């Protein structure tokens, strides 16, 4: 099984340690991981802003780079969801589309494909899970709070494999943090208000860290925490799963 690692643009630039943790973890689990150069962005930022046509060449480029792998894995739920859900429509009649079926968020991949049952790491900290909207409602990493379906959380399942970690979740467990790509700057007051409340609900759990499958939400929350001098740390789920590697 050959995996193409996709490290989304902002993870590449701002959170490279998340890419490193993903790579190390996959390697440790015996997966054949390749990181094809020339990859940049999936195109979601402009598409959500209303310019999805500008994402089409990026989608075609993404296909060219990644279509040969068995799976494409990314440490960013929202980017994975964008490729999975939107590429078939964006590329229809323009380019072959294979990555939609192959695309997975790394947590989804660890949980559903590798079915990881053991991890070596220790992380003796209390963490609050940030259930990112696209992870929850598009990739089904956990059961959305609105639906009457059996409760599950792939994130919680994975974290429970790490020794010492204590996992909590905030009230309004999967309410949006207000990032939303360019929503965060077009509706900045609403976005910051949503983020502030989300941040406070995470802090109210007494957790030391906010953790989630999507660094973009964390980036937004971290920006608010730093502005408001609120003492809580941020860490991507995969960094906890890769603890000790």
């Amino acid at each position: 099984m050959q995996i193409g690692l996709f490290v989304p643009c902002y993870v590449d630039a701002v959170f490279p340690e998340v890419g490193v943790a993903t790579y190390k973890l996959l390697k440790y689990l015996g997966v054949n991981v390749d990181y094809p150069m020339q990859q940049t962005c999936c195109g979601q930022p402009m598409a959500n802003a209303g310019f999805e046509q500008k994402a089409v060449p990026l989608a075609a480029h993404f296909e060219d780079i990644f279509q040969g792998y068995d799976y494409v894995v990314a440490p960013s739920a929202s980017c994975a969801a964008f490729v999975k859900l939107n590429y078939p429509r964006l590329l229809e009649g323009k380019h072959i589309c294979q990555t939609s079926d192959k695309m997975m968020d790394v947590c989804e991949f660890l949980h559903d494909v590798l079915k990881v049952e053991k991890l070596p790491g220790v992380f003796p900290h209390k963490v609050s899970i940030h259930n990112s909207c696209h992870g929850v409602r598009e990739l089904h990493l956990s059961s959305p709070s609105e639906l009457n379906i059996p409760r599950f959380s792939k994130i919680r399942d994975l974290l429970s494999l790490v020794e010492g970690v204590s996992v909590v979740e905030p009230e309004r467990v999967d309410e949006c943090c207000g990032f939303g790509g360019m929503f965060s700057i077009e509706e900045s007051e609403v976005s910051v208000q949503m983020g502030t409340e989300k941040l406070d609900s995470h802090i109210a759990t007494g957790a030391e860290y906010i953790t989630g499958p999507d660094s973009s939400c964390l980036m937004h929350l971290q920006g608010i925490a730093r502005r408001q001098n609120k003492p809580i740390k941020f860490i991507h789920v995969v960094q906890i799963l890769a603890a000790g590697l």
Partner: protein
Amino acid sequence: MSTKHSKAASAFLSNKSRAQFLNQSIWYVREKRDNVAMQLVEWEELRELSSSIKRHTVTHLDTYLEQFASRAEANGVVVHWAKDANEHNKIVYDILQQHGAKKLVKSKSMLTEECHLNNYLINKGIDVVETDLGERILQLMQVAPSHIVMPAIHLKRQQVGKLFEDKLGSESGNSDPTYLTRVARLHLRNEFMTADAGLTGANFGVAATGDVVVCTNEGNADMSTSLPPLHIVSMGIEKVIPDYRSLAVFTRLLARSATGQPSTTYTSHFRKARSGCEMHIVLVDNGRSDILGNPQHWETLKCLRCGACMNTCPVYRRSGGYSYTYFIPGPIGINLGMLRSPRVYSDNVSACSLCCSCDNVCPAKINLSEQIYFWRQGLDAIHRADPMKKIISSGLKYLYGHPALYYMGLRYAPLINRLPRNILYNRLNAWGKGRELPTFARKSFSEMWKKGIVR
């Protein structure tokens, strides 16, 4: 970078306690909805059924409308067809005139809001009295509803107390809810008894029987129709459903989704006029046929007008109903406004973080967030796209389309971290208004990979 919505939202949020009050009040309704939804094991099956029935009905609308109209006529009801708001208003006025009616009592109807019926009739000298308590409060205040199910949810009882003191002569300073309700009841009782006609909306029109079904909690639709000799129903053509079996699906979903009640206090079925009285149904298109022909947006016709999408919407709860420029706010309102006129109502399309929560609460499973995404894609063509967002998107397309440039950008990005605060946090930096900027890594992942550091 802003829209009318974002500006209004910003103004709304400047009053922190009011903003928090609204968010809490409406979230409480979302929680009540969750509680009752989780009590029914068949909940998701019901939503699926509801969606299928609505899809079936609106795609066979001609058949069901004809059946509905002929059954209603067989029951002695007079059926009218209105192609738009104007025609609807004219028909209602003509009926009133034929009966010499001077005073009209109304139960809550979003369709009449859509048609601006009240002003039309008032300008022609009709005394129009809203009888839903929330609607009546707003009518006395001369403002519009801020929510389609709980129109006065944004008000506090003290404001209502003051209003009643001024308009209805209630005790000064008394804002006890029970007291105020009694004052309203007494006031409305008199209006019901002196009305010449009653108008209701329609939650459902049952094709098999010609029944109109109206759901209320206050019984005001029943009062509006039981006392005056004339009952007029304003009904959107998409409100028709096949039969009682399908009605059973919707009545199980509607109140649970709307307010977290197992059912509304009153689910009233109107089949024919009382002896010696008249019943009229005005079936209104007003753009609905066009929506039906719109491949990306026809699903909005499945809407039950329960308001659940508003209650769950994190943006609605933080910006309030008045921050939207269309009379229906929230996710469904963004879509319906765009269907009414994209040029006029495009300012609401920004009011969505694409969290998709609305899709999950909708009892008719409308793809609300996806539709908002689609509207955004069309803004540039009608010259309603934000120019700054367009520049950023074009810039990103260029940057990400040229990996060599992207890599160079990554190498120099850390320099941004060291720029002076007053340059970084300038007026154009909307991110920086409430947030610190992220810190660019000294070495990007791709650079580390190239150098063989990641292994």
